């Protein structure tokens, strides 16, 4: 095709695109309610991009760079970056989910740390996370050792242990609520459901969460264990080391990196636990502390959700979420530092 015609037509396309974007923006700012103004805007933007794409120019490479990055960065900016910046900002205001009237400084933060339910929720999340990390990793490592031993049908067992991980926490949570409320109580005649006792209810969530997550962490340990060189294991058995000695003196030290990965994965996962929490207990049962009635199994993520969505305290919920983010950021940065240190030593 004649290069001049191509140039002219692509410029025409871009011009058309710009016109429709401008018209759409005029309608937007004029407070228009026409349903087509959205399509006009998107269509205009697409025309601009299409026109730039076919425009014959030496800068074609640069245009491609921008066009290839744009869709992802556009979505990323509007779903993550902008809400994040606004979120931090709103935590210093009296935001009600729609608009804010004034800055309140650190008031939300002070309210948060002096409210019983939040401090309790923070502590109970730490308790939950600690026990959960230990249990998940213990179960996962044991399963991994079984699944890398010489038994028949290893792959089948691995797949079976992995299954709970595929199903969402919401669905599994309801199933387990049934198991705790109906099955266990019918197995042990006349017993009360675990979910009616504050301490046992936390244990119940820990059990389910370990059950769900152990198969996943198991596969990470399996990958680690398979990386232990066979000749080292053979050498140790020739030297007469029994399997316990092999485990503690060879396997575990050699998969130290796998431990770091698994522990941090479980740590982050435990802190973010929401679905199971919502579906199994929804925060209940209540516990009386210092004369206050507090939901005994409301972990941080659920506490944030309920503060904002159920109690309609958006600014407070957002403030809790910002602190939640800081906690998780500290955890993640610690992991990076530890892994980097390991790499240097290796």
């Amino acid at each position, binding site marked *: 095709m004649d290069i001049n015609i191509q140039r002219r037509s692509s410029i025409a396309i871009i011009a058309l695109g710009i016109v429709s974007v401008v018209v*759409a923006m005029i309608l*937007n700012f004029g407070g228009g*309610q026409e*349903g087509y103004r*959205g399509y006009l805007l*998107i269509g205009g933007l697409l025309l601009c991009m299409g026109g730039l794409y076919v425009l014959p120019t030496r800068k*074609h*490479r640069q245009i*491609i*760079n921008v066009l*290839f*990055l744009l*869709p*992802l*960065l556009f979505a*990323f900016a*509007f*779903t*993550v*970056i*902008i*809400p*994040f910046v*606004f*979120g931090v900002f709103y935590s210093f205001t009296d935001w009600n*989910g*729609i608009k804010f009237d004034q800055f309140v400084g650190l008031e939300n933060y002070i309210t948060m740390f002096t409210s019983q339910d939040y401090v309790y929720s923070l502590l109970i999340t730490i308790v939950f996370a600690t026990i959960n990390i230990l249990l998940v990793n213990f179960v996962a490592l044991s399963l991994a050792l*079984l699944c890398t*031993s010489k*038994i*028949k049908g290893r792959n089948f067992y691995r*797949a*079976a*242990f*992995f*299954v*709970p991980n*595929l199903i*969402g*926490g*919401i*669905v599994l949570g*309801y*199933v*387990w609520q*049934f*198991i705790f409320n109906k099955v266990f109580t*019918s197995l042990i005649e006349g017993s009360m459901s675990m979910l009616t006792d504050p301490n046992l209810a936390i244990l119940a969530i820990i059990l389910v969460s370990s*059950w769900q997550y152990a198969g*996943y962490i198991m*596969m990470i340990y399996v*990958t680690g264990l398979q990386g232990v060189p066979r000749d080292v294991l053979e050498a140790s058995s020739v030297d007469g080391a029994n399997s316990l000695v092999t485990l503690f003196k060879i396997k575990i030290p050699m998969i130290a990196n796998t431990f770091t990965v698994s522990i941090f994965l479980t740590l982050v996962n435990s802190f973010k636990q*929401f679905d199971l929490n919502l*579906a199994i207990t929804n925060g209940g049962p209540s516990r009386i502390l210092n004369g206050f009635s507090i939901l005994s199994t409301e972990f941080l993520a659920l506490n944030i*959700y309920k503060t*904002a969505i159920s109690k309609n305290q958006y600014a407070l919920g957002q403030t809790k*979420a*910002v602190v939640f*983010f800081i906690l998780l*950021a500290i955890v993640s940065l610690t992991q990076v530092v530890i892994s980097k240190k390991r790499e240097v030593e290796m």
Partner: protein
Amino acid sequence: MRSQIIKRNIMEVLTIVLMLVFLFPFVLVVINSAKKSSEIVISPISLPTQWGQLFVNMGNVINNQNFNYWNSFFSSVLITLVSLFVITLFSSMAAWILVRNKTKWSDTIFLILVAAMIIPFQVVMLPLLSTFREISDFTGIRLLQSYKGIVFAYLGFGGSMSVFILHGFIKSIPYSLEEAARIDGCKPEQTFFHVIMPLLKPIQMTVLILNGIWIWNDFLLPSLMLGLNGKIKTLPVAVTSFVGSYVKQWDLILTAAFLAMIPIIILFLFAQKQIIQGMVEGAIK
């Protein structure tokens, strides 16, 4: 020698017992989905007297107004597939540009994407809703309670990790391949779609699986963006809204859970190796 065989047998028995314990909840779901409510009260662990009840329960649940199985199933499928398509395509494109253009800009963008991986959903969810609502009011493009809005959100949230995984892989592809294509007269976009994209298939599989399992099972984002009682529901949202309306009807709730589990279990039976591998690889990176 003898003691080793005994030991192996003990291990085998132990593994089988553990496996049964692990899978027992699923057994309970299946047997109780085939019972009437009164039968569950009598004994939740016995086998059902009539397996035919399973289909009666399934029929009740599928046609239930709050659950609307086929609608939510197809909404889930549509949202998951379209999101996966846009995430994989646009992340691959972005990752390729970020690897092959070493400038201050590309490094900064990549750093921001990686750093954003530690942002938990909770900290952005509330402002996300208000931002989307304002964009909708301003431009007339409906983002809440709509397919395009939720797909757009999944692209934003899934993008950073996907770019990170793809970035690492693309770095290992020799640049000489692209130079050869350029000398042969390929434009950059042709090089990408004809030379690079085919090479990315194995790592794109990982991206698809990681994002797919997450999106399919995700509850919080669709419950906020689509609403618990909105027109469009994904399966986890539908289950929750169903449970909310039938508090103690365990026969129906378990049948709903059964129906929600079935699709992914079937998928797993066909592609278990790829799924496990994909999820584990994604985590280790």
